[in-house]
């Protein structure tokens, strides 16, 4: 029995406003194979789905077309609905009447005409649909977290607490990330280290968590439930099992000229170092670009002083291969380079600093031991100017187009802390907008203004001019007063934009996870699936997905963890049945398809084929449907067209083409 049902959704007025849905229904009824057509206010609602289910049962439909929003939105919903009603879920096609019709057209006649054609194409396709059965594949009960900042740590802890093994891969020598560099956190002003280090210790001590610090992901293959990952453990030149973390080596190291990454380059560190005192693991690494022994063969001081005998100059990088069921990206951010903002004299004056640098200056473990000092002459500043939105909210050729989101709040924090500790210091903040949506955020900002007397000026700074006397003349504007301002400051702090860690591009490519034009990882759905990548089995945690502060990062980290746990808790995964399939009766066995398959899913077998009564052995292509991801590259490479893609077959697509061009 063959009969197609067509269900046209109004989507409230989203579709119905520019598409005459009744007309679409009438026209659909005229199409071959259609035995039922109706419209409804909200097809995705329970009542709408009930209508579909009822029609499937009553009219014994063999396939349905739902004319609604994008299939990326509700295809899964309607497939489930069909399945419940006893129809194979792959006998469902969606005509996208909302995103690709009603929302972009204004004229109702034009919209309706296009809607009819789109519906017709979907009907033509569904006529050729075949029932597909999803296969099954196993799940490896282990997760990988890439990045060991607060996002990665929190995700790993939550997954581990649920009872699954987790590996954290962190490219620097210690976990902790950017949060470890912060002094205080808004809006509560807790000490960042005091709340982060216990979590770092928990992660290190957790029996289910395994840390690969000073390591990088090198290669990823496989698919959801069964990823194979190669991790490069860079040579530390220190034996992790032997090292006791006494720190003598760092003290004795004669090469102390390297810039401390942890202190944002504001202080020096030895060639053998841990990034900071509370580093985890508390095992130093030797920086081969700085170590005299590794560069010249002479020195060996650290080896001499190490009582544990942990120094090993001959250590080599090690590549380990591990299997995972799920991968979480938590690669975080960096502050942008300020090369394009020389009007703020960042490169010309030591007293023009970024907020992250100020963070280190304010920190007791920082380069100035927590004293607020000018880096040029060590004098305490009297007038500090903060400049907001440096490199954020720019035109594309000028900087980052997005709002970095955290700057307004940390600037309020900095201003407040400075005014609290040094009441005689004048603090001026040039702002374009103060953005404080968050619990207790605006109150926090208001306190900076009302209780701490921070001078907020609506306007921007055009130039910072370093003067001969060492002061900085800030040329700004007060848009409210309508005045140009020239403020003599002795320190200027730039709220530089943040950008995704540059390594994320490479990682995204390895994971085949998509990234947007700003290098932020794309979520599977911006509202409904914010912690999942569109690539199955890959999840997002922290700033790699978009700018966010610590509380938001931690919530997202937990959300990513629960998604991972939900995946790892399954014993079997249903695989996408829209895979390639060769017609073995006609396959030439020419190998063109295997050459283009990115998954190695195609192999060849010699098969005895009965071709019109003549039995012959032929070399034919066989697709491993567990490996095939359904891209279709092979289908075009095949010269005779015997390789086809289920769900997107040649005939189905040609039927759509014909329906559109009719």
């Amino acid at each position, binding site marked *: 029995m063959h009969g197609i049902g067509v269900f046209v959704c109004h989507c409230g007025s989203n579709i119905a406003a520019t598409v005459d849905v009744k007309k679409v229904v009438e026209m659909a009824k005229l199409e071959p194979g259609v035995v039922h057509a109706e419209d409804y206010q909200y097809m995705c609602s329970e009542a709408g789905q009930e209508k579909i289910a009822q029609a499937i049962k009553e009219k014994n439909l063999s396939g349905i077309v739902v004319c609604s929003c994008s299939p990326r939105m509700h295809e899964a919903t309607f497939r489930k609905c069909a399945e419940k009603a006893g129809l194979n879920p792959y006998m469902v096609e969606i005509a996208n009447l909302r995103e690709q019709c009603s929302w972009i057209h204004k004229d109702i006649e034009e919209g309706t005409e296009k809607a009819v054609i789109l519906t017709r194409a979907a009907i033509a396709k569904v006529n050729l649909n075949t029932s597909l059965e999803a296969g099954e594949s196993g799940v490896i009960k282990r997760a990988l977290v890439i990045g060991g900042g607060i996002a990665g740590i929190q995700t790993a802890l939550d997954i581990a607490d649920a009872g699954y093994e987790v590996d954290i891969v962190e490219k620097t020598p210690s976990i902790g990330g950017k949060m470890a560099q912060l002094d205080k956190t808004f809006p509560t002003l807790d000490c960042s280290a005091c709340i982060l280090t216990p979590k770092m210790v928990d992660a290190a001590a957790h029996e289910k968590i395994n840390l690969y610090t000073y390591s990088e992901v090198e290669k990823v293959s496989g698919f959801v439930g069964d990823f194979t990952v190669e991790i490069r453990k860079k040579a530390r030149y220190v034996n992790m099992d032997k090292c006791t973390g006494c720190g003598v080596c760092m003290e004795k190291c004669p090469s102390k000229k390297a810039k401390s990454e942890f202190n944002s380059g504001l202080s020096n560190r030895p060639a053998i170092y841990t990034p900071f005192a509370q580093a985890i693991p508390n095992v130093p690494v030797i920086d081969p670009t700085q170590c005299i022994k590794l560069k010249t063969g002479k020195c060996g001081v650290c080896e001499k002083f190490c009582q544990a005998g942990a120094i090993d100059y001959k250590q080599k990088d090690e590549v380990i291969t591990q299997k995972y069921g799920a991968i979480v990206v938590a690669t975080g951010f960096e502050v942008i380079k300020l090369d394009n903002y020389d009007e703020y004299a960042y490169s010309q004056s030591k007293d023009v600093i970024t907020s992250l640098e100020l963070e280190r200056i304010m920190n007791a473990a920082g380069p100035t031991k927590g004293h607020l000092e000018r880096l040029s002459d060590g004098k305490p500043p009297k007038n500090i100017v903060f400049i907001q939105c440096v490199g954020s909210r720019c035109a594309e050729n000028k900087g980052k187009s997005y709002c970095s989101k955290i700057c307004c709040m940390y600037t309020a924090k900095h201003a407040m802390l400075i005014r609290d500790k040094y009441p005689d210091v004048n603090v001026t903040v040039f702002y374009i907008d103060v953005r404080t949506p968050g619990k207790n955020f605006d109150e926090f900002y208001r306190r900076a203004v009302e209780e701490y007397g921070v001078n907020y000026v609506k306007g921007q700074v055009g130039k910072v001019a370093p003067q001969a006397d060492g002061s900085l003349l800030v040329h700004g504007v007060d848009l409210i007063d309508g005045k140009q301002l020239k403020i003599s400051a002795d320190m200027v702090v730039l709220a530089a934009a943040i950008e995704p860690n540059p390594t994320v591009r490479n990682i995204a490519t390895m994971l085949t996870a998509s990234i947007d034009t700003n290098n932020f990882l794309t979520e599977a759905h911006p509202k409904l699936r914010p912690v999942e990548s569109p690539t199955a089995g890959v999840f997002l945690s922290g700033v790699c997905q978009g700018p966010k502060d610590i509380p938001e990062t931690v919530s997202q980290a937990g959300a990513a963890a629960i998604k991972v746990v939900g995946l790892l808790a399954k014993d079997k995964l249903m695989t996408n049945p829209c895979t390639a399939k060769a017609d073995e009766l*006609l396959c030439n066995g020419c190998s063109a398809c295997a*050459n283009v398959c990115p998954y190695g899913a195609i192999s060849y077998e010699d098969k005895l084929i009965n071709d019109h009564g003549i039995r012959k052995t032929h070399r034919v292509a066989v697709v491993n449907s567990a490996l095939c991801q359904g891209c279709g590259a092979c289908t075009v490479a095949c010269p005779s*067209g015997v390789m086809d893609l289920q769900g997107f077959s040649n005939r189905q697509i040609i039927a759509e083409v014909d329906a559109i061009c009719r």
Partner: protein
Amino acid sequence: MQELISRLKELLESGSVQRVLGWKKGDFTFNPEPAYFNSAEELSEFVYDGFCGANLSKYMIKASNLEGVTAVLLKPCDTYSFNQLIKEHRVIREKAYIIGIGCKGKLSLDAIKAQGVKGITDIKGAEIDGDCNELKVETLYGEKTVSYKDSMLERCHVCKGKEHMIYDELMLESADTLDADRFTDVEIIENLTSEDKFTYFQRELSKCIRCNACRNVCPACSCRKCVFDSTKFDSEQKANVDPFHESMFHIIRAFHVAGRCTDCGECSRVCPQGIPLHLFNRKFIKDINEYYGVFQAGEDIGQTSPLTDYTLDDMEAEERR
């Protein structure tokens, strides 16, 4: 020539090959045809001269399924096709004993006729042992002499060289025939206006009678079922009035063999309507050479075909000439 026949006899009699795949005499001196020779006796019909243009490599697809080894005579250009067929697993190397034979250029009856010769009954001077300078043509209107060179197939003027890409043994001398650039004609068309290009191809393709000779002879068109005979695209050959396949047939065919076509020229040789079909294939070859680096199908079995390969910085479609 006698040497070749002796060698073939020897191979057959010793049992090292089961059969010979070569050419046998036709009704006239100028139309020999491919044939199997199963015994030394049958070799009396064997011929190899300037009219044996047919590329025998495609026959090896069937011969690979026959019992025992087949001795196959391959001219230099035919070996490219044979290699390509090995690469695509269409022939079995071990089932072939390849005698690479020399070539002094292959002749085209059309080219002879084009020199104003009519009513041909016999042609002498095409023997492979001869010097292949002149052809003596007997016609209903008397004997005429034409130059061998002017009577060659187009493909021989742009010969890929007289070196065999694959063989078990070599026999007979070759002579160089290359005297033209193979992309000249393509370039001429490329430089026409869009309108003129269309007019040109419309005129040429309107001669097509869809006899499928080009497809059937093509060594790259070896699919067990051609897309034009298959139901998989709703593209099977329909009534002759349906315009689709005339307009698209040759483009699709050329695309299907792109990166695999060795430019053996058989399609143009066999076209009863004289359509220069090689111009399609050569356009793809020229584009591939220009855009992705020089590639000759069948030269090296290990090389990846340009259409199943890519580089990260390939040019964009919009950047094409």
